[in-house]
Structures are given as C-alpha cells and as structure tokens.
C-alpha cells in the first residue's frame, strides 16, 4: 500500500516537472470532485446548489449569447482604467512622500485618514455626484488601488540604502537621474507588492460597485442572476472572479517579480 502511494506520488512529481501548469490545476481537482459529489448526493436542493456540469453549461450558453464576453470586457476595462490612474497618481505621490520629509509630515496623516474611509464608503456620495456610471466606478477603483501603491512605494523608497544614493551622486548622477536609476528600481519590489494588493482590493471593489451601480460587468451579472434566482450564474460569476485573478497574478505580476526583485536578489525566491 505504502509503495503504491509512493509510486503515485513520484508519478505526480514527474508529471508536475514536465507540465508545471498541471501543478496549479491539481489542487482544484479534489475541490471540484467534492462539489460534484455533494450535488450528486442531493444534500441540498438542485436550485440552491447546482453541480459543476450545469455551471459549465451555463458558461457555454452565456458565451454563446455574447453576454459573458461583453460583461467580462466591461469589468476588465474598468479595472484597467482604474488601475492605470491608481498607478499613475500613486507612484509619484509615494516617491514624493518617501523622499521628502516635508511632504511626509504634510501628507501622511491625510493618507491614513482617507485610507480609513473604505472604497465602498464613498459610494453613496459618489452616486450623488457622478450618478450611476463609469466615473463613479473609476473613482472607486482609483481610490482603492492608490493607497496600497502609495504606502508601499513610500516603504520601498525609504528602504533604499543611503549608500546607493551616495554612490550615484559621487558617480556624477543628477537628482533626476538618481530618481530614475536608483529610486525607482530600488522601490520596485515594494511598488509591485503595493500593486498586487491594490489590484486585489480593486478587483473586489469593482465587483461590489458593479453590484450597486453597474449596468453591466461580472458583478452586475451575479446580482442580476440573484434577481432571477439563477444560482448557476452566481456560481459562474464567482468562479470567473477566481480564475481571472489567478491569471492576472500568475501571468502578469509574478513574471514581473521574477524578472526584477528576485533577479536582483532584493527579494528572496
């Protein structure tokens, strides 16, 4: 018996080495199996908890009708626009606060104060100001993304050893070149951490905002499904959220981290 299990295990290890992507799918197999067994045993009524097969079918039909691709696109574009502005405003602000004692004294309390007012807490007033539209959604996402980016950028900038600034100065670098050659790359691992957190929060805020103000998008799809009592579509929405995040993390964020901070030895592998 023991030998048999060891054989299976070594087989899995070899398979995983050959196709690494299988390794990331494998943990989901028992989860899906358990889900399938629970639904087959009819522990809960079908209408409350549909099985994997029904969710896949629903996915097929929603793709076929063009609803899912359109909603997905809406959600991703909103996230991208919000994240872009979050980064474009957050990194310079973080560098300013990280480098300048005066800016830190002036802005740090404000940052902490506004960070505490969570993204969703802004929704009531934003809806009054901007109505049920893209502006409201974008503002919420920018607001969500910007704080982790700013705070982590500040941390990154401040953690650069002073000798690196000095080395650059005594090699003739101007202030602007130091910004580009020392401050930005030095803070990059922390900026990426901030971005990862920010995107994670932003993704959640997006879904919540779509539920409340949206007329399309994955969050709207799920909330709309609730209205018609379609648990299948709600489950589908949840699964899509998870998969999308996994893709963003492992196809975009993780490779950037491997190519920068890990390569440079600033982050341990």
């Amino acid at each position: 018996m023991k030998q048999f299990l060891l054989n299976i295990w070594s087989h899995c290890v070899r398979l995983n080495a050959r196709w690494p992507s299988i390794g990331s799918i494998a943990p989901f197999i028992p989860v899906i199996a358990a889900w399938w067994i629970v639904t087959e045993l009819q522990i809960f009524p079908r209408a409350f908890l549909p099985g994997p097969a029904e969710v896949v079918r629903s996915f097929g039909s929603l793709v076929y009708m063009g609803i899912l691709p359109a909603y997905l696109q809406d959600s991703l574009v909103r996230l991208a626009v919000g994240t872009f502005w979050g980064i474009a405003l957050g990194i310079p602000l973080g560098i300013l606060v990280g480098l300048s004692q005066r800016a830190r004294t002036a802005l740090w309390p404000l940052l902490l104060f506004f960070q505490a007012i969570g993204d969703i807490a802004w929704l009531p007033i934003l809806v009054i100001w901007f109505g049920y539209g893209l502006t409201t959604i974008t503002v919420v996402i920018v607001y969500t993304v910007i704080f982790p980016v700013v705070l982590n950028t500040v941390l990154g900038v401040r953690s650069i050893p002073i000798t690196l600034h000095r080395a650059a100065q005594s090699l003739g670098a101007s202030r602007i070149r130091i910004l580009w050659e020392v401050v930005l790359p030095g803070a990059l691992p922390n900026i990426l951490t901030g971005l990862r957190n920010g995107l994670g929060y932003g993704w959640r805020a997006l879904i919540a905002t779509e539920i409340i103000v949206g007329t399309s998008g994955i969050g709207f799809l799920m909330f709309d499904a609730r209205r018609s009592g379609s648990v299948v579509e709600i489950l589908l929405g949840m699964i899509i959220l998870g998969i999308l995040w996994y893709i963003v993390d492992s196809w975009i964020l993780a490779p950037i981290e491997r190519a920068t901070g890990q390569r440079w030895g600033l982050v341990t592998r």
Partner: protein
Amino acid sequence: MKDLTIRNLSKTYFDPYAGTNVTAVHDVSLKVEQGEFVCIVGPSGCGKTTILNMIAGFIPHTGGEILVGGRPVKGPGPDRGVVFQSFALFPWRTVLENVAFGPKMRGVRKVEREKIAHEFLALAKLTEAAGRYPNELSGGMQQRVGVVRALANEPDVLLMDEPFASVDAQTRMTLQEELTRIWQEKRPTVIFITHDVAEAVFLANRVVALSKGRVLEEIDVDLPRPRSWDALNDDARFKELSGRVLQLVRSA
C-alpha cells in the same frame, strides 16, 4: 588625478539627546599629493569616516576647508570617486552596467562606455563576471567591482571607506595586493580609511593616525613596491612601522 588639501577641518553637530554640541573632528589638516596613497587609521568613533564623508561631500563640514586640485568641495561630485564598505553596487544593474555607470552619467555613448567598462573589468580580472548581477557574486568580487566602478569614472581623488572590512581575511589579503597593483598601474590619488593598522601600512605611502577627531601623527611608509604579503609578513621594517602605528593608535 589631482592633489587634495584639507585645512583646519572640523565637524560639530548638535546632539538632541544630550542637548549639547559634539565635536567629531577637530582642526584636521592634511595634504595629499597627486598620485599619493594615504591611509587614515584609527579606532571606531575616531572621526575617520566623518572626515571621508566630508571630503566626499555627503555631509557638510562646519569649519575649515577642503580643496581638490585647488577648488573647494561643495557637495558630492564625480571628481571624487568613493568605494563603500557596503559595496553599494546597484543590484538592478549588471557588473558591466555598474562599472559603466559613471561614464553613462557623463553622457558617454553606449559602445564607448562599455569598452571603458570592459577595460577596467579586465584590470581587476573580472571579465568573466561582466554579465552577472551583483547578488550573484561573492563579497570579494563585489568589492572588486566597487573599486573598478569608482576608477572607471576617472576621478581626481579616490576615497575608500574601510572597503575590505566586510570580506574574509584571505580574500582581504588578495584584494589588498590587487589594490596596490592597480594603484601602481593607474596612480590615482587615494585616501583610504581603515581601523586595521597592518592594512594601512601595507597599502600606504603615508599613514595618518587619528584619535578622538585629531591627527596624532603622520608616518611615512618607505617600503618598496610592488608589495606582497609573502614578502612583508616577516619584513623587519614592516613590523617596525606597524608596531609604531599600533602604539600610537592604542595609546591615545
């Protein structure tokens, strides 16, 4: 390469915890000729790193003057190359890019500055490491890059702040021998800070003993070059000079 003159240099700063002014460097005067190798030696807290940081322009001095080739020092600049104890290589740049950094800041074209960098890397036997990142190198190799990076920018004065203090003893001896070899080849003006008396005597033309922010004495080192540890370990003159410097530093 130019000469360096320090006249009545002092550094006083306010200690907010003690609530008093503390003087780290008292009235230090020193003249380093063009192409000379001077070691400043003294125990921790004697003000030697403070002096170097003032010469480099990293911190302001509160009295006296520092002249490089007759011109007063105002802030850091490429005329004074610095080698740091912590190496201070840019982790996100390859060895080649680190060495080419100074010329790049001067606006030297890519092909040209990489040629310069390769030349200096060869000087320190680092040709193989050109494409690697600093974190992939041993401490000794990293500091070779540090020295060569400062030299490749052709500074008037080379300032070295305990550069070999954080490498192991065997590597340190090799680096010291290599430094004397490179110095003989390029003849830069060097100020080298250390707490290691034997290191100071081994490297220098002149050793400046420092204690509590004051210069105790300057001792000329008339040992022949090229110098090697094999030859100097049992050398009577080397022992005599090291003994004198050690006595000075310890007595104060």
